[in-house]
């Protein structure tokens, strides 16, 4: 038998999305193993099978520290198992192993209709992404002051690498905070979706809710629209004479938070 075949058979014996195949693969692979002491080859192989699942489950636990608390073990463990089967790790690093979980949970029958679960999953993954995002040099107010006034209308903005804007239709962040403090959350549907900004300031991951005009402006700025377009957008919420003031207020806010980068 070639080494390639042996490794493929070993892998099939510890990982198989199909329970029946798994048993058969395990049985076949034990033919390659020595009988040693009181422990059977099948028991010895089980050590690897358990280690495989438990290692990947612990990555999900670590990236989504409150998801399991929200849905409980009876839903969480099958979810982890289903995800591990659907998205086997392809990379040497586990940093992005859970990247598909927010999308996966949207299609996962037992949970796809639980909006709080899908939103909390999305929020936790964004916190994780912001945590590991590439470092950025935050833009300062002083730097903006060096820009000549005639260039302001065409000014566009670049956001720090860990920046994200999310809309939640439930009180997701409050639920997350309660779970994080090991408290019982009160789950509520909001009248209108709330916008949340998630980013990393220095080494600390941050999140803040923003009003609707700010959220739309952030979205437009992220899409590459210039300062003049942002001002036009603000006309939807503000009278024309208040728009410049509001636009500068927003810009100042973004700079204070460290959302913009050079």
């Amino acid at each position, binding site marked *: *038998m*070639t*080494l*390639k075949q*042996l*490794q*493929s058979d*070993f*892998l099939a014996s*510890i*990982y198989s999305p199909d329970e029946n195949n798994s048993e058969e693969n395990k049985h076949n692979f034990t033919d*390659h*193993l*020595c009988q*040693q*002491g*009181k*422990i059977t*080859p099948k028991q*010895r*192989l089980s*050590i*690897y099978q358990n*280690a*495989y699942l438990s*290692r*990947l489950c612990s990555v999900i636990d670590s990236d989504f520290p409150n998801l399991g608390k929200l849905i409980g073990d009876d839903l969480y463990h099958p979810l982890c198992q289903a995800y591990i089967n659907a998205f*086997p*790790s*392809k*990379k*040497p*690093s*586990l*940093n992005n192993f859970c990247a598909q979980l927010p999308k996966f949970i949207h299609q996962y029958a037992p949970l796809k209709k639980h909006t709080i679960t899908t939103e909390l999953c999305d929020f936790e993954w964004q916190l994780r992404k912001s*945590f*590991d*995002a*590439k*470092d*950025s040099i935050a833009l300062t107010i002083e730097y903006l002051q060096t820009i000549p006034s005639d260039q302001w209308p065409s000014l566009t903005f670049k956001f720090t*690498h*860990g920046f994200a804007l999310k809309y939640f239709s439930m009180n997701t962040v409050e639920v997350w905070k309660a779970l994080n403090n090991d408290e019982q959350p009160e789950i509520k549907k909001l009248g209108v979706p709330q916008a949340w900004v998630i980013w*990393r300031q220095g*080494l600390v991951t941050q999140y803040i809710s923003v009003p609707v005009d700010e959220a739309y402006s952030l979205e437009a700025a992220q899409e590459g629209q210039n300062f003049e377009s942002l001002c036009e957008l603000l006309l939807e919420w503000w009278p024309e004479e208040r728009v410049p003031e509001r636009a500068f207020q927003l810009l100042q806010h973004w700079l204070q938070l460290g959302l913009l980068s050079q």
Partner: protein
Amino acid sequence: MSSPLDKQLPYSNGHKPFHGFGLGLRPEYYQDILDQEPKLDWLEIISENYLVDGGKPLYFLDQFKERYPIAMHGVGMNIASTDPLNLDYLSELKKLISYVKPLWVSDHCCWTGVNSHNTHDLLPLPFNEQSIKHIVSRIRQIQDYLEQPILIENLSSYFSFKASDMTEWEFLTAICEEADCYLLLDINNIYVNSRNHSFDPLNYIQGVPKQRVIQHHIAGHSDHGDYIIDTHDAPITPSVFTLYKQALEHFGPISVMIERDDNFPQLKELLSELDTLREIFNDVKSGQTS
């Protein structure tokens, strides 16, 4: 005939660097180590933890790099796999090596995945000529790519293949000699395997090439009676300390560090274990000089 890598092998002439007593750097201890500045001679990082774009890991790496010598230890080289070498990974690793300027770079003598599926576990393979030939070729390619020799670590295992026709230490010896690489000899893993596969751990220690051993790992394990699992989640056992003493008597001073990967105790407990290693070292040293 000398190896093309000889100029980068300060220890190929029998002189091995001894860096003392180190600790596996884990995020759980970042702040304590910086605050307490404990008596640590060196640190070992898990390379993959720093193959990230930014944020805390790289910030702390900078801090530690200024304070301690650092060795790089990986879990992602997938040395023994029959998949093609992952050049993207090696390229990232090479960049990190150039940034950290480590004491040395190590990974495990095992495979972690095949058919592009990574298990993130350290998986064994048969101890035979076919495996040796495959691994030697891979290590040579890796060393050429990284432009430096690597250390390979012996792993814990829970079964033996019928296809093996030599001992684990004969297997490692052949690989190190033929690939011209070095050994990170994990004392705990030798103990674990000696129980799981019923052999005398001293035969193992005496069976590997002395001049190739550059570093030791030492750790705790979970003893289930009929078998042991290498969990790194418990204090080092007296049997493993004893084996470390026997290794010292045989190899002489080898840089050693403690690995703790779960059930993290307070830093002072690990420092106390390091003190025990120092005491053993001093006892052996004074015994040899008296």
